[in-house]
């Protein structure tokens, strides 16, 4: 690892922070996340996550937390989950989800710039043909969300939300 890479990692750790690793206990089945232990030189210790991984984990936890459910921080979480459950127009749902994601990202001081928020539910869009994949997506009533943003360390991250929130 050259010096530039080490400085970049140090900057990521310094500015993007670190935290306990919360890993999905049943990926693809449940949202649940649990702490994990690693074997270290001094015995077993809590596993950690840092840098962009920490940002990604933070966003994943925030996107799977209903906004207002944390009684100690009522503004934490993703408000789009409420929109998905409401009986409103699909176009409005899409826009509420988009706003929820942007609000969530704006709240995180480590996100410097949101590059793109793309929502795809299989409907025709600009410059896109109605192929079989789009039809399948449309019929599954799944909303795919892809978000691109830049961190304060100049890293560009792309988050893709599928049927279950994941990054």
């Amino acid at each position: 690892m050259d010096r530039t890479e080490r400085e970049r990692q140090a900057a990521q750790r310094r500015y993007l922070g670190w935290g306990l690793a919360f890993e999905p206990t049943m990926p693809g089945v449940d949202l649940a996340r649990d702490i994990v232990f690693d074997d270290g030189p001094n015995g077993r210790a809590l596993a950690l996550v840092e840098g962009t991984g920490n940002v990604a984990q933070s966003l994943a936890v925030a996107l799977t937390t209903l906004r207002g459910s944390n009684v100690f921080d009522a503004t934490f979480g993703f408000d789009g989950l409420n929109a998905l459950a409401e009986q409103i127009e699909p176009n409005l749902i899409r826009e509420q989800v988009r706003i929820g994601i942007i609000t969530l990202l704006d709240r995180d001081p480590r996100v410097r710039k949101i590059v793109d928020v793309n929502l795809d539910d299989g409907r025709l869009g600009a410059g896109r043909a109605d192929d079989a994949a789009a039809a399948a997506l449309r019929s599954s009533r799944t909303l795919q969300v892809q978000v691109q943003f830049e961190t304060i360390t100049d890293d560009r991250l792309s988050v893709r939300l599928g049927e279950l929130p994941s990054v």
Partner: protein
Amino acid sequence: MTDIRVPVDGADPSVERNLVDQLEGPYPGTVRRVVVPLATGGAAAVDWTSRHPVLTVVLRRDLVEETVRVTVTVDPGGADERVLPSVVFAPWSAAGASVPAYAPDSADEPLVAPFSVTVTAERAVDAAAATAVTGAALTALIELAVVEGNLGRLLYLVSHEKHRLRRAAREVHAYRTLAHARRDALDRIGADVGVARFVDELVHEPASGDVYARRLAPPAREPDGAYAHRLGLYRRFLLPTPGAVRRLLNGPGADTEPNAGLFADLPGGARFTLREDDDRFAVAIRLVAAGDPQHRTNFLAQLRRDRLVLPANTPPNNTTHAGRALPSGRLAEITALRASLRQSYAFDNAHALAPPLATALDRAGRVCRALGSTLVWQVTRAQDDAGGSRYELGLGVDVGWPTPAQATDLRNRVLDTGRTVTADRTAEALIAAARAAGVPTVASDGEVAWLWRVCGVQTTHRISTTRMYLSHLPTRGLAVTAPTAATVGADVAVEAQFHAPGDPGGNALLLAGLAAAATAWTGTGEPAWSPLTDAAARTRWAGVPTRPAGQPVDEVLAAAGLPAVRDPAPVVAALNRLPDELVETIELPAALASALIAGQPAAADRLARLVGLLRDRHLAAALPLVDSGNRVLLVCSVIGLPQAGVNLAERRATGFRWYTVGLGGGTADVKAVGARTTLRPTHAGLVAVVALSYVRTGLTDPYEFRVELPDGVALTLAQYERLMNTLTRVCPLGVEINTFGIRRDHVDLDADGDAEPLRPAVARTFRTFQQRRHRGVYDQL
């Protein structure tokens, strides 16, 4: 108090349950808390594949002063059976507290296969042997729970100390209560209320009869339980009402239930009785003109003209009433009252009554009429200027007795619940009240006092075999004798006498008591004693010889609680100064007197029984005089006697107190006490001489209540001490608590199970629990 809950977490004190409830987002899915059903036999099964599980034992109720030990066996009866280290819940653990019992190793493999356990539990209080908790008691005491996930384990670990904090908080809270405080905590409570822990004990010295406090050998001190029991007196808000005192002494429950209060340790669960039925005072008033007798004559004339009710329908009476300056409505009421009185009473033209007496008599007449009786009471005497204290103010009338047939008819009518109710609501209410109070038989109540009493006539006194005296004032036969006029500055003798029924006679209480005692005495097969007339008694007193000391009779008399008179001269001189009516003398049967003089112990017992009979009949004093010729006189009285004092009762049975009320400028001085007193007018005018008298018939005095125990119940010295301190605590200002009966009949000094009379010198020998606190002595308590 057995359950002390410190609601730190609100209604549900389970720590881990609350932690799980507070998780949000993706975390609740990994921290699961599952209650494992526990069979009454102690078997339980974790029948699912759990992830990073920890099995906890959870308390389902608060513990008090008990330790609970739970042992879990994994895979019971299987190849991998293991008995795990016991889980211990210390005293004061709160409901919801949990202790980890089993945490399978899941470092390499997070999923743990289903497993089963069995649970046994036992509980112990203080140093007592542990007892097993089984069946429904087991499931009511504990439950099992599985907390899953690494995060769950971590949260459980970091919050586990909270259970200990909650337990400590409950323990501190409990130690502030009297029921659970121990050692120094109890001493601090005692310091708060000024009651120190005893470092001594009460001891009775049989040889001297004394009771004293003996210091305990250090480091022995009063045990916590006994100290807390004493402190209980002072650790509550206490208003000394009769109900509160009864509840304090006896605890809740009916009179037939065992004592559950401060004295639940009495033999047989005996309960205390509080008596506060007062003896009523009797009053008599005599008018004495100071200086010119015309003052009295004028006053009585004015009384008849302006105040008294003249029932007879004659022109002079009608003119007198019509001439009174009263509203027309009031005059009409009086006219109606007079007319009503005439329906039930036969008056002479000159008869006059005090208005309250007229009203009370009218009530009785209306009751008779409502009952359908045609009885007309013949009034033979009413207001009489020369009638003495009973009649001169119109405060009483004489009427004839009803015949037995008339009394029986009245009684039958009032007891007839099927009679037709009349429109006279006052009379009907009085009839109901009489029925509720009880209607005695004609044989025991020939005067039909039940009728007069319920109508407000408080005195029904037989003055002859054909007449009775009725008054709305409580007089009970009391009469004051004094001249109608006295010279200013000169002393005149005034005398009050409590006439027995059928007066004139001796003191009512004394004669009645002696008669009842004589009946009881002969009823046990003893020969009758001989009563002496007043003159004969004084003659016999004068002949009583002087005796040398050391005669056997002295010991016999002392054994019966009576004084021995060896030099009769001063005693007889003092006896001669007493009023005749307050003293009666009897001569004991010859055989008994001979046995007494011979010093036979059996004779002492018989004499003690006789003294007991006199005491039970409320006589105040008895003085034996050993006469010549093997004869023994017993002087009995309702007041204190020379050398004997008040040796039968706690105080004299009767007494008199005198007052004067000046009228028309007259004033006079009077000696306040005594049956015979001296009046000295100081200013001319009219003086009303008032005699207030009491007769103690076993009831309490005003502003006094009495504490009693059933016969045969003996208090230990410690219980007696506790009782006296309790009564001190509940004694309202200005009220006397009479414990004479307790001190005489219910204290067991020598711990033989039988009570001994507590000598006056010893009666106050108890330690006062609550000490007055002074600045700087707090730490010494």
